[in-house]
């Protein structure tokens, strides 16, 4: 559906994208994650045709590959990381303007606009001036705008930044709904857990390089070293610790808040076997969990500048 082939973008001496290869399947939600300045916005601008790549290719449309700017505009909806609103237009006029820029017939506009405003929950703001909307509302309006011509591919640059928790949840729900309508969605964020909840696939980008791509689960599973397991026994933390010392490297095991915590290098079945062993040794377990936030640890570890250079690209498919 959408393919980036060896994409390079240089701004003078700055290399913003350093040979990106990526395949984004139809009807998936792909999340671009990376720290500030990683190249997310640059990649998205190249995909939308706003920026010329220094070298490499963007292939849009699979078998019916896009041949012209006009065709590209029809296929792609773009929501940049800023609002872009006119202060002297009302919400419905704003939408009407963008409907015009895609040459949607006058007669069909009202229905399209009403449907989209409903989708993003702005129906009651129809006649409000755009610049009087709150930040979150503007963001939702911009999402509605990017959908005005019913594009197949949505490119959303940090759609959830600056939203309150409820709006975030709603935004995610809208994106899932859009996916179920058959859209391919590319979102960026620098918050990995946020994306992991809604994306089907994720690409971690740092310093213009893709350092990991795949499904969220796959990425985590393949980063064994980063997985931290917490176990809370019914009683006798000492007994559990002693037992674990026979199985794992002693130095890694730490006790915290009535439980035990240790990095675990094995996969899920190895973890299951370990839990079974513990239970068989008459240690009652209350909870076994993966440490919250370990996703962030992975991310921190991957996007660490010193680390990034020596990390091989991890590709999971």
């Amino acid at each position: 559906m959408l393919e980036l082939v060896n994409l390079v973008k240089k701004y003078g001496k700055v290399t913003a994208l350093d040979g990106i290869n990526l395949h984004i399947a139809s009807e998936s939600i792909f999340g671009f994650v990376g720290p500030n300045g990683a190249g997310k916005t640059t990649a998205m601008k190249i995909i939308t045709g706003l920026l010329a790549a220094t070298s490499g290719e963007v292939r849009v449309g699979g078998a019916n590959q896009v041949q012209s700017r006009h065709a590209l505009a029809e296929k792609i909806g773009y929501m940049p990381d800023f609002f872009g609103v006119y202060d002297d237009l009302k919400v419905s006029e704003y939408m009407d303007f963008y409907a015009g820029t895609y040459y949607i017939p006058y007669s069909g506009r009202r229905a399209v606009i009403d449907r989209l405003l409903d989708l993003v929950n702005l129906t009651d703001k129809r006649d409000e001036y755009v610049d009087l909307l709150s930040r979150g509302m503007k963001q939702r309006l911009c999402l509605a705008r990017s959908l005005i011509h019913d594009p197949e591919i949505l490119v959303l640059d940090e759609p959830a930044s600056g939203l309150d928790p409820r709006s975030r949840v709603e935004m995610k729900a809208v994106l899932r709904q859009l996916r179920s309508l058959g859209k391919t969605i590319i979102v960026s964020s620098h918050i990995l857990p946020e994306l992991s909840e809604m994306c089907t696939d994720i690409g971690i980008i740092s310093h213009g390089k893709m350092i990991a791509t795949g499904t969220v689960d796959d990425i985590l599973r393949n980063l064994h070293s980063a997985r931290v397991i917490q176990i809370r026994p019914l009683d006798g933390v000492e007994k559990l610790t002693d037992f674990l010392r026979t199985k794992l490297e002693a130095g890694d095991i730490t006790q915290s808040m009535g439980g035990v915590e240790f990095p675990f290098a094995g996969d899920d079945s190895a973890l299951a076997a370990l839990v079974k062993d513990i239970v068989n040794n008459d240690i009652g377990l209350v909870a076994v969990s993966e440490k919250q936030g370990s996703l962030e640890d992975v991310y921190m570890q991957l996007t660490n500048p010193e680390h990034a250079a020596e990390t091989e690209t991890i590709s999971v498919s």
Partner: protein
Amino acid sequence: MKMLNPVFRRELITALRNRRTFMAVGAYVLFLLAMAAFMLYASIRLDFIEGFHPQITITIYNLLSGIQLALIILLVPAITAGQINGERERQTLDLMLVTKMSTFTIVVGKLLSSLMLVLLMIVASVPVFGAFVYFGAVSPAKLLEQTLFMLVTATMAGSVSILCSIVFKRAMVAYVFSYFVMLLLTTITAAVVGSIFNVLHTTHFNNMQLGGIFVPFILSLQWRELFTWLLALNPVVGFLSLQDAQSGTVSLDSFLTQFLFNFQDVRLTTQLPLWLVNIWINIGLSCVFVGLSSWLLMPARRLGKFSFS
């Protein structure tokens, strides 16, 4: 289905909602009327002439037209040179560039939007100037010619300003450069040609030694043709030539005839009056500037680097 240019349509909606649009146009028409009344009153009162004389209305008509031209040349860059930079600042330019609109559509929409006020002013002033038709100062056909001349001049000034707004990312620089181009066209061309005429005039008539070298050179046909073309670039010269053709009061053509044309019967190869040449030149310039603007505005111009294979 044919649709109104989306950019123009948007600006039209906001302009028509804005009371200032109508106030500006109304104030302008009132201003023209007041000027006309004052001049008519003053001329009668000061006893330049006895009673009513059509000649005075011709002069007033010419003066008011001059004011209108000056207004166009001063106002159009002020409105237009910030257009594209304004979209850049509001961060709406990228949003337009990813749509199905071509950059040509965007440029034309912006040009129409910024000319809208001036066009309204020109159109609204037609009844005022029409009164002079009634007084016999000018014929309806000549009024039409003048209105056309104003529209074309405004379009040329607008397209220069749009181009500046695209080329210069900083709004201030765009304004300054737009005005500089207008200054170049209206004043500097005339100054250059004027001073050459001056040299020609003095050397020829005083028969100075310099004249022996200079005059034959200046008087050579190609050079005089070139100077005339340079003058034809100038909207003010075009305007004077138009008035000259209309009323014979401003004797530009006789001036030019004396110093340029009839000297050895040289005329522009086109055989057209200067104002008409000026209109054609301005139409040509507008097309070039709009075309160049559209090309420069296109993002990721090297589409080969994009996909499409």
